[in-house]
């Protein structure tokens, strides 16, 4: 338990940005506990691009809308914020490959041995998007990927997927595989990460988000769950509407 005085000290440390997780400590006689979360989530807000350049942003917004196109019921990847999601991810630890084993030597192995490239996702996107526009410019009358029609865009992406288009210096198929992983993640992850705006991805399939208690519905066999999804950032009904 926490003694009265140390509440204040812990709070002060927390506000100074210190967490207990970063240094070795001895644990004795009490379950360690201090107020506030050890590492509360960051809430990504819409706003200027943090990783992408304007040209890259045009291309990625076009791409996410082809991978998840809009339909009459559900917005596409662009409106759902998938490009913003990828932007924030590439700016963050994911983009620079934080946490991965990154000592050499780097050797090519078998598929079963897993990725062995020193290329970080950030570099993969930088090079991949540049190569994509370069390819389009030289093969589609000087137009960038974003300037192509939706059908033309689909055609280019299908050829990349099939290995029919190669880029210089970066594996085009590998880049496309990364997109096929990252774009749906943007569509289905919590809106706090920048995508799945207004929980459109969750609403589309009926996933209730971070709800943590289904005791009231586990017995309702073959009946659709009736409540709307909830994000870590909440939902619109959490804020009192002025009456």
């Amino acid at each position, binding site marked *: 338990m926490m003694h009265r005085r140390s509440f204040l000290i812990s709070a002060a440390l927390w506000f100074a940005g210190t967490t207990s997780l970063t240094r070795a400590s*001895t*644990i004795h006689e009490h*379950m360690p506990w201090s107020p506030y979360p050890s590492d509360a989530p960051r809430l990504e807000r819409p706003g200027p691009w943090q990783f992408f350049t304007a040209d890259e942003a045009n291309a990625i917004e076009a791409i996410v809308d082809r991978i*998840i196109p809009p339909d009459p019921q559900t917005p596409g990847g662009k409106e759902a914020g998938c490009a913003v999601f990828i932007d924030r991810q590439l700016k963050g630890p994911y983009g620079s490959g934080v946490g*991965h084993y990154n000592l050499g030597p780097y050797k090519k192995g078998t598929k079963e041995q897993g990725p062995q490239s020193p290329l970080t996702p950030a570099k993969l996107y930088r090079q991949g998007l540049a190569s994509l526009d370069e390819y389009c410019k030289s093969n589609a009358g000087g137009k960038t990927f974003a300037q192509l029609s939706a059908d033309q865009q689909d055609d280019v992406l299908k050829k990349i997927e099939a290995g029919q288009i190669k880029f210089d210096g970066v594996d085009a198929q590998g880049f496309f595989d990364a997109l096929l992983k990252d774009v749906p993640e943007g569509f289905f992850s919590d809106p706090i990460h920048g995508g799945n705006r207004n929980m459109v991805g969750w609403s*589309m399939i009926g996933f209730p*988000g971070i709800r943590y208690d*289904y005791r009231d519905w*586990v*017995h309702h066999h073959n009946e659709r769950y009736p409540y709307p999804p909830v994000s870590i950032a909440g939902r619109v009904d959490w804020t009192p509407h002025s009456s």
Partner: protein
Amino acid sequence: MARKLPAKDVVIVGLGWTGSIMAYELAEAGLDVVAIERGPWRNTTTDYPSNYIADELRYRIRHELFLRPEQTTFTFRNKMAQTALPIRSWGAFMPPNGVGGGGVHWNAETWRFLPSDFVLRTHLTERYGASFLPDDMTIQDWGVTYDELEPHYDRFEYLCGTSGQAGNVKGEIIEGGNPFEGPRSRPYPNPPQDQPFGHTLFAKGARELGYKPFPQPSGNMSRAYQNPLGVRLGPCTYCGFCEWFGCGNYSKATPQTTILPALLRKPNFSARDNSEVTRINVDASGKRATGVSFVDTEGNEWEQPADLVILSAYTIFNVQLLLLSGIGKPYDPTANSGVIGRNFTHQTISDVTSFFDPDKFIFNPFIASGAIGMCIDEFNGDNFDHGPHGFVGGGYMGQVQTNGRPIETTPVPPGTPRWGAQWKKAVKENYQSAMKPGTGVHGSMYSYRDVYVDLDPTYKDRFGRPLARITMDFHDNEIKQNAFLTDKFAEIFHAMGAKQIVKQYRKAPYDVTKYQTTHLCGGAIMGTDQNTSALNRYLQSWDVPNLFVTGASAFPQNAGYNPTGTVAALAYWAADAIRTKYLRNPGQLINA
């Protein structure tokens, strides 16, 4: 220069399930115990609280609660002739880190192994003849029997508050439980969890085919529970964020929710977190451990002397520490000699995804828990006659759907494009009416001469120590076993009325990028012969008698169940041997 700390009676390496059990049992015996844990302290409401733990991206996709490969990893190859390369990001298995270990983010599937699993070579040889087994299969008897472990299984289940339906109490077969299980001394402490729709449908289909389905034994609470140590758990709320996540409302059995609160009240126990043990120290004779060396996050090196060393890290780190400390003879597959690193195994799992009519079925797949599900055990271990099939081993299978998390669990029928309008439509149509069990077929992996762990000649960790090197591939026996089981599993989904069924057989080569449980086993195995085992039947090192090594590293081969129940039962068994035998007469407990 390492600074020397005051000596303790016991030093424990790693404070996960077995470290916590050992610490409690030995502190209870009056010994002065310190546990050293590589990762951080972890608390329910500050580290994985209910109001933000349900973040699939952060915890499932980005692996927040796991060891970071940059801290340490392994190298991997399928065959001895290949060059092993480092696992740069996790895939096939997820090494834990931090207080509570894998117990924080497990599904809490709490099984016992079959009585025949513990005497496997003897049993199979008697039933089928020695020539039925492949030449290079190195399965062994454990040196301990189910009957000996039964009281210790029981202790763990009552510690955890396991929710389940007994199938065999003292030899009496109980309707609704697993009729194949070994006799248990008493029922589970809690009734089974409520089952969602898809799980009950599976049970119905299985019954129609003549099987005897039963609820999976679960460490997710079917009701509030107070365990024998006085520690309480709340009722599971079916949030569907169990494996890969911590439980935000104290309803999953973990060291934090079952032992640590009681352990930390003991004045003769302390723990150091964020401190990585780099070596077990031995004296000049090489026959006695003097303690361990560890490094804290400041880079300071410390020596912790102790009379008794308990090595209770994750499977492969146990093996690596033994190799790095020069304890026991390293295994050499070519010469077929040595013990440390041999009989390394994993699990043979596969899945069947089935698609039902969206107009008729709403499964609400997000209403789930880690160990919820209905299973059958007809095809596990030696519960069926293997004679006609030409393989040994087996597994349980079941509708063990643990989640409907949408990044991971949005199955689409075969033939659907990987992206675009059609993909989006298929995701939307099938989310509520597809079934995708977490681990549908949970098969055994038996041990082979060329599947093992040693030290990598090239790649190092941040301290410059060689990484552990895994050499592993699936053998024909396991491939055949899996094909047979997967087909049997799919038949049940047919019986349930699925309109489309996709069988994902497990095939060679073993792929380190595809998740297939974290049940790495073996490498420091128990047995009766010190030429073929690292530990005696009490998990005591044959070479260094004041060293005990807990965990699945002691399994001579892996059975068709999740290992944690057996891992914990072995820890209680070893703790009991230390308390009742070793402390009275410290030394080798088996006269080899």
